């Protein structure tokens, strides 16, 4: 393992970790502004985390080691997954980056969250877990199809390779990527539990999915869970950004270029976050059982991409 990789391994997750509360905060702010409220400060999420880290942990008497272990595993798998999407620069070695493994690592993180939701025996947790699993099951074909579309367009299954290819060309050489981009955007919405799929703001029984599932988590454990969701969102956003607009990504690691790339990425990320916030504000929550229709759009687009690519 050379220094390039070492830097990457440390830096990429850290970048996601640090940036994710900001992204979350920005989305909230954007939404608040559109609703005509001042909204919380952009940095509110950081305060939130600090507060949580100082609170006590409350466990249910009925819970087992699962609920205790879940958050660790969740964040660990999430951060591992974040290694797969270069956010600042593209490393040279290639043992990570497989797009399928990337998505499955995220599922693994989710799997332990779901078990955590079931552990306490609370009805809320059960309901949240059940819905989370449902949504993630039916979005999976879309996800894999988008992966396939990416692979078909860029002729590789490694995410860093994809980015490298993209950097070498221009968006005009891969027009179909716009379609994939829309798919990825939908996946992003779904995976980060946003309107119209989920409503992160409420704990109402009718709408809640993700938030209900983590209801029994508390204190630092909740912070870990929140962080993990944040990282998930950030990483997916990074993927979307780099697929549709990779420029600014550093090909090689040098101190200056790294800094530049990091800033560029952060800016792009914030723009996307604002878009997400806007998007969320424009749409109403979809009924739970209408979700498959919504996902079908993404599936269709990925499929169209593949067909396009095949006929080209």
């Amino acid at each position, binding site marked *: 393992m050379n220094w390039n990789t070492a830097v990457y391994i440390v830096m990429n997750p850290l970048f996601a970790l640090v940036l994710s509360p900001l992204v979350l905060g920005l989305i909230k702010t954007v939404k608040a502004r559109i609703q005509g409220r001042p909204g919380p400060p952009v940095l509110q999420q950081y305060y939130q985390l600090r507060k949580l880290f100082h609170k*006590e942990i409350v466990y*249910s008497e009925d819970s087992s080691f699962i609920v205790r272990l879940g958050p660790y595993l969740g964040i660990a798998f999430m951060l591992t997954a974040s290694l797969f999407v270069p956010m600042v620069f593209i490393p040279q070695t290639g043992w990570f980056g497989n797009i399928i493994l990337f998505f499955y690592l995220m599922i693994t993180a989710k799997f332990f969250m779901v078990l955590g939701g079931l552990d*306490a025996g609370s009805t809320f947790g059960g309901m949240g877990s059940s819905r989370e699993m449902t949504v993630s099951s039916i979005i999976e074909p879309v996800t894999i199809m988008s992966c396939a579309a990416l692979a078909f367009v860029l002729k590789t299954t490694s995410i860093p390779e994809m980015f490298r290819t993209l950097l070498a060309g221009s968006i005009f050489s891969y027009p179909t990527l716009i379609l994939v981009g829309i798919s990825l955007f939908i996946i992003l919405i779904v995976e980060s539990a946003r309107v119209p799929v989920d409503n992160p703001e409420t704990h109402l029984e009718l709408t809640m999915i993700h938030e209900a599932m983590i209801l029994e988590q508390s204190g630092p454990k909740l912070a870990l869970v929140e962080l993990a969701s944040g990282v998930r969102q950030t990483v997916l956003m990074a993927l979307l950004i780099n697929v549709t607009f990779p420029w600014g990504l550093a090909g090689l690691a040098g101190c200056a270029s790294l800094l530049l790339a990091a800033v560029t990425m952060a800016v792009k990320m914030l723009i996307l976050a604002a878009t997400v916030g806007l998007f969320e504000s424009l749409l109403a929550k979809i009924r739970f059982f209408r979700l498959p229709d919504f996902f079908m759009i993404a599936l269709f687009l990925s499929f169209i991409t593949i067909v396009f690519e095949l006929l080209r």
Partner: protein
Amino acid sequence: MDFPEFSSGIEDKEAVVQSLFWVGGALCLVATILPLVLLFRPSRLLRQAALWVLLAGTGAISAAAILVISRSLDLHLTLLSITPQLALSFRLDKLSCFFVVIIGAVSFCAVIYSMTYIAHYKSERSKQFLASGLAFFILAMLLVVASSTTFGFLFFWELMSLSSFFLVMFDLDKPETQKAGIFYFSMTQMGTIFLLASFLLLYRFTGSFDISAASNIPQWGKGLVFVSLFIGFGTKAGIIPFHKWLPYAHSASPSNVSALMSGVMLKVPIYGLVRFIIDVFRPDLWWGIVLLFFGSITALLGIIYAFKEHDLKKMLAYCSIENLGVIVVGLGLYVIFDFYGLRVQADLCIYGALFHTLNHALFKSSLFMTAGSVVQATGTRDIEQMGGLIKRMPGTGAIFLVGACAIAALPPLNGFASEIMIFQAYLTSFSLGRPILEILLMAGLAALALTSTLAAACFAKAFGIIFLARPRSGAASAAKEAPFAQLLAPGILAALCVGFGVFSYQLISNVKSGMPLPDMLPIGIIVLVLTGVTFLLLLLTRSPVRKTETWGCGIPSQTGKMEYSGDGFSEPIVTVFKPVFRTRKLSTREFYDKYNSIPKSSSGEIGTLKFFEERLYVPIARFFMKIAGAVSNLHNVDMDALILYSFIAVVLVILGVGWWL
């Protein structure tokens, strides 16, 4: 037996393998007979001795097979020539030994498991039968895959079917056994008939019973043999629509047997498919498409059915159907890619399918064993009656969790390690250049993706409902941890699941280098390190910990009844897949008067439509029974009619002969 140094010549190794193989087989046979020796005075000692002998036997055979694989040997052995053409001959090459290892290793663990599991049956005599039947079943399976002739293959295949049939019928007291038995027997026999047909067709074209002799066959014959083989093997492997026996049989049989049936016996038809379709023949494109199509359907429907099931063992059985579907998808893709010369993808698929075969054997038998312990501890198979078991059976629960993660294809465990190979092949199929076929492949890909996350959902539910939260019944709260042997056996398998997952890249590279696969080892290390680091960091916060009741919206003391149930958990997905779970409503009303205005009685029933059973199996069975009824009625007559039959036959013969002359 003395072991010559492995460094010596190849002949010595062959001799070692040979003697290990024979000794192992003989030990299994001894283990079959031993418990039955004193049938009328059953002795525990003999039974345990038999199990130890069986353990040694499976161990020896596995060792032989591993030796063959590691040294790339190719041995031909003959046990017995009934006549010169009908020999029970064996061929130990890499492929067959791969399956021998699977069977041997899983059986090894199953035998360990049985040591204490068998003890919970009441009747002494039935315990002896179970031990003996187990040994015979294992021996038969081992010899099927080792057979080098179609004759031997079918010979041991039938023995395998028969012995497993007896094992399924073992719990004769249970009413559902009859249904399971009838389904299993009929379907198995149907499968055997198709296999028989294809073997005999092969003989017609090649004039030989040798498996590897099937080279120059006319095209139509090849197709016919393929279809017949596919139905034959598909029936045994539980390929939808030939799957219906599987959930019944697996849930009715003792758990050590279901572990073997699901973990191992289902792999035997896979061996057959691989051997015949890929090793012996040069497959056509449409074979691949057929395999892919049925594999995808099987995988998807299998897991959807599994998800709805709340009988623990039935759920696992449906899940086996799903996994077998995945394996068949791999084989189908291999055929397609191989046909178009995409070497890398083809290799990915075939090795992926084989690896998944191994992996499924490991995690599924581990799951069945732990499930068996759970069923034994709670006395029910209904997961709605369970709950909270992880605190009562922590070992079992932990092992089940590993198995569940593996089967849910979560990295870095082995289930994912093999599924990714197939995904990888799908995703890199862009160089195929056949748009229509490609679109078909993408449909398959979507189905496979759905399958694998549904599996995750399914096992999240299974683990959550069985082991987490509060007990939902008295039996569950009184459950006790299983004895050591029943933890050891699935524990070994679970450890292998982790090992084969984390070291999958290294393992595969050993067999075939240059596969475009991710290395799971660093992933595993990173996850471990990150977990550790987070754990340590969190320790630093030194947050106080408090234990309290689960929040229940203000309800003071919640009971197990208020928890989210298994059916509740699966409800959303069931709703999404409404077309699959069609409900059947039956209502009948009777009236006193002919104008249907004064109701007399009415009855109604709503249930899930068991589509394949009610729309496919039952109509066919009914059709056959109708014919059978008609034919039987022809016999329930007086003498006049019998003479009339003879008379008609005589007149017809006279007519026919006159016409012929």
